[in-house]
């Protein structure tokens, strides 16, 4: 594929298409988990216990096949999709030796990680 402008790399278009496929896969995975949770709610598996749960409680809830576990995991997967996209950009920029943009991607991930830590401490 011919680059559109001079700073495009030869694999630019294929990388963008790959990134699009990653977003589709992440969204599909999240929606599937949410629909599983909704189905379990419809069949009365954990309808009364629906509330915001902690990440630590997730394995137990999923193991017992409770709706809350699938719903929270689905929401977490959805939250993780943009983070995963930034990870991929970090790797792609580092591979191309575009260090300034790799550093920006790393900074974004650090701020997001700070958000998790600060949010949990405030809670």
């Amino acid at each position, binding site marked *: 594929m011919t680059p559109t402008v*001079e700073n495009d790399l030869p694999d630019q278009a294929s990388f963008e298409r790959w990134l699009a496929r990653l*977003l589709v896969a992440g*969204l599909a995975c999240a929606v599937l988990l949410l629909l599983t949770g909704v189905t379990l709610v419809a069949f009365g598996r954990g309808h009364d216990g629906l509330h915001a749960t902690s990440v630590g409680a997730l394995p137990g809830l999923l193991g017992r096949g409770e709706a809350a576990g699938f719903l929270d995991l689905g*929401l977490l997967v*959805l939250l993780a999709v*943009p983070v995963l996209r930034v990870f991929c*950009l970090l790797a792609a920029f580092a591979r191309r030796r*575009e260090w300034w943009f790799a550093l920006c991607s790393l900074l974004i991930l650090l701020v997001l990680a700070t958000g*998790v830590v600060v*949010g949990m401490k405030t809670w």
Partner: protein
Amino acid sequence: MLETVLLAAVGLVGGIFGSMVGLGGGIFIIPCLTLFLDVPIHSAIAAGLVAVIATSTSGSVAYLRRGLVNLRLAVCVETVLVAGALTGGLVGAMLDKTVLSAIFGGVMIGVAFYMALGRSVLAHAHVDRESVGLLGGGYQDAHSGQVVRYRVRRLPFGLLAGLVAGNISGLLGVGGGFMTVPAMVLIMKVPMRAAAATSSLMLGVTACAGAVAYFARGLVDPTVAVPVVLGVTVGALIGSRLAVRVRQSVLAAVLAVMLFALSVQMILAAAGIRVR
């Protein structure tokens, strides 16, 4: 059960409008949840942020496939957007709900004016023909078949606007697209189509920064967020197909009127006056 269906319906309409006009949809979803379904403002904002991630993810797919997203510019602006969104999210979770509702109503009036007047002005941004530089980019215009090239101008001012946009996003649970798109077009001189596409991708990570703070504090209520997210996902898919058939100017005008009416109700509700 009826409430769940109504929540999904709000998400569906928000997703359709959001994807059709290039916004996250949170600016429509949050007032509908608080005004008509009596969802507490913090739960509504948390649901709005998660919904924006869904709209951004599904909306960005088409833009990436068409080569409209400027990934280098996206990561630069995202750096300040997430920093602003994180602080906004933490402050927002602590603010009194009346104050938050009043701020939301005020911002919505601004968005309504932007939808009514601003978008036509933005469409006439200049497109550059010289070297694109490190941050610039290009794309093939679908209508003319020409390659549109652009150079990014006044980056520090653009980043400053991004920081403010991120802060409002985290504070109010909206994507911030109504601020990032004009900032990129008017300050950084990025063409409208590239700005909307790049903004669409950035909304996801900005909303994520705000949502993380709400999630960590246990404020994401799955009984509200899940139906809204499912509705928004379907709505965004429908909206992206409808967008090519409906005139954008008509749609923007309709949305502006709706947002203005909702903003007035939001401000009145914050003052303790309920109008339905």
